[in-house]
């Protein structure tokens, strides 16, 4: 059934349809309406779940970690400084291999205080061992939440479903709400290999020595390094599992596509804009304008940021004249995180082949600075003419 609602409601409906058992969250703009909606579902009995109000984001994720360890399907959501306050537990959830799903409603981080959209919050959590998915519209938000539970539980890795604050969270548009029966067919109840149980006591994630050693049962147990190596290996494997999730989803719901990237007019393009989230949809309008001018451009949204789909990106970008990476976040002191990752992927897969594109980086929309489509078009037009700078170019700056 199609409804017109905002992005936070799309996320909440996804959580409802996934029959989540435990929700713990602390309100923060622009995530607040999402958790409010979930608390209403629980209060009205529409959703059979425990909603645990907490005093901070750190506690919200701590509750999810405990509940997930006990075998519950769990959900939390946050933004900006809330995510940063959660950071210690973010790392813990990944190390503990718990399939928690968290929506990150992207917002600029303080200081100075700012409640508007950019993506510095989730990008700053890139190296925590969480899978990161980025959404460009409400359909992708609700679908991503459903896919995320399947994937997270399959690979035992937590997932952040990221979507732009306000631009998506508070904007209304039509989207399809899948039928409960179909979601149930796609997603079975969560049945972990081990769940905390008083009848079978266990120690989880206690001090783990640098080297391997015998455990209490006399079996050789992994050291810290083996456990972390497996996280890396299984993060990489989860790229394949994500493709399986996408296919399963498409079979049942009749929509979906490339699990990693979302290309628009890229096949014959000479220049390709790359980005994360709603910005890549806005760029389609610029691409349409420039195509009419005879400039062969396309745009590609990166739907999966971690694990990084390096091979898919290199394959899609090989032989192009230029790649222009638009980012609403950066690694201070260098450049946008996505452009660094992308250049690394291109070097790995294309170095010495003679089909390596030039790469440029554009920083924009920081702290909710308006992103005018005309400015995007102009930036893309200029970038397609010549490489503007080796440094990231800021657009919309008023200095």
């Amino acid at each position, binding site marked *: 059934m199609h409804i*017109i609602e905002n992005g936070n409601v799309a996320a909440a409906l996804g959580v409802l349809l996934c029959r989540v058992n435990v929700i713990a969250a602390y309100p923060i703009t*622009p995530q607040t309406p999402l958790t409010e909606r979930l608390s209403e579902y629980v209060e009205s009995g529409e959703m059979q779940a425990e909603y645990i109000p907490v005093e901070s984001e750190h506690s919200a994720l701590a509750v999810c970690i405990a509940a997930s360890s006990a075998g519950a399907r769990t959900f939390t959501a946050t933004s900006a400084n809330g995510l940063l306050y959660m950071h210690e537990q973010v790392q813990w959830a990944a190390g503990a291999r718990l399939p928690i799903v968290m929506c990150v409603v992207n917002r600029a981080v303080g200081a100075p205080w700012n409640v508007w959209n950019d993506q510095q919050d989730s990008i700053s959590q890139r190296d925590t061992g969480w899978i990161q998915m980025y959404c460009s519209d409400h359909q992708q938000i609700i679908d991503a939440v459903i896919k995320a539970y399947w994937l997270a539980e399959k690979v035992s890795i937590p997932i952040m479903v990221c979507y732009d604050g306000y631009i998506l969270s*508070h*904007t*209304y548009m*039509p989207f399809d709400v899948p039928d409960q029966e179909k979601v149930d067919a796609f997603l079975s109840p969560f049945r972990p290999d081990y769940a905390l149980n008083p009848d079978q006591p266990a120690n989880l994630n206690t001090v783990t020595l640098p080297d391997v050693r015998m455990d209490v049962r006399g079996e050789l147990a992994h050291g810290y390094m083996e456990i972390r190596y497996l996280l890396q290996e299984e993060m990489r494997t989860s790229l394949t599992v994500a493709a399986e999730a996408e296919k399963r989803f498409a079979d049942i719901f009749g929509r979906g596509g490339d699990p990693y990237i979302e290309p628009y007019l890229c096949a014959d393009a000479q220049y390709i804009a790359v980005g994360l989230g709603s910005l890549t*949809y806005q760029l389609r309008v610029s691409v349409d304008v420039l195509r009419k001018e005879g400039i062969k451009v396309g745009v590609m949204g990166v739907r999966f940021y971690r694990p990084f789909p390096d091979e898919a990106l290199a394959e899609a970008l090989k032989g192009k004249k230029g790649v222009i990476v638009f980012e609403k976040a950066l690694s201070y002191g260098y450049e946008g995180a996505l452009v660094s990752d992308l250049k690394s992927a291109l070097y790995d897969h294309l170095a010495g082949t003679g089909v390596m594109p030039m790469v440029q980086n554009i920083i924009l929309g920081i702290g*909710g600075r308006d*992103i*005018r489509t005309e400015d995007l078009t102009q930036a893309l037009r200029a970038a397609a003419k010549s490489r503007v700078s080796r440094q990231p170019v800021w657009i919309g700056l008023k200095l």
Partner: protein
Amino acid sequence: MRDHKKLKAFELTDEKDFIEIRWHGRGGQGAITAAKIVASAAFVSGYLGVVMAPTFGTERRGAPVMTSLKISRRKIYDLSPIEKPDIIVVLDHLLLAEADVTCGLKPGGIIVLNTPKAFESYNFKDYRLATADITAISVEAGLPHGMVNAGIIGTLARATNLLGMDILIQGIEEEFRTRNPEKNSLAAKIAFERTVARG
């Protein structure tokens, strides 16, 4: 003497398949709800692209607020704020003096205005104007004073011919199903009848 002459129909044709409406109200006046009702009615009427984006961050009761509504035959990919609206809807005539409500309005664009003042007291030379005293009409329909967001939809419908009044009325009664649905739809119906428009 009321002039009931209808404005030139503002149809969505192949040339004009993208309509941008900017709503101006005060925090708590329900501009977002009104825009949402129109958005749903447009979608039901076959416009696949419907995007309603409130401006964010400074909402408080009584302060000027804005929301953007884009309506298109095709999916809308650009969620950025409207810069050049085809239509502006003003829920409180005092906003004309407080905020630059006509900013970017296309020449020949339509202003839909809730005002107790006479139609003749306004002079927007480049724009077409439609007015009604929605505040009084809503009270007449039995609503509490200040509830104008259903009524203004009647004036918008009369001024623009954009969407069928029957679908809008359905949308109003659905949105207000727990809060005086009949009184709200009655306000829209009266406003539709009493809208003064020239263009």
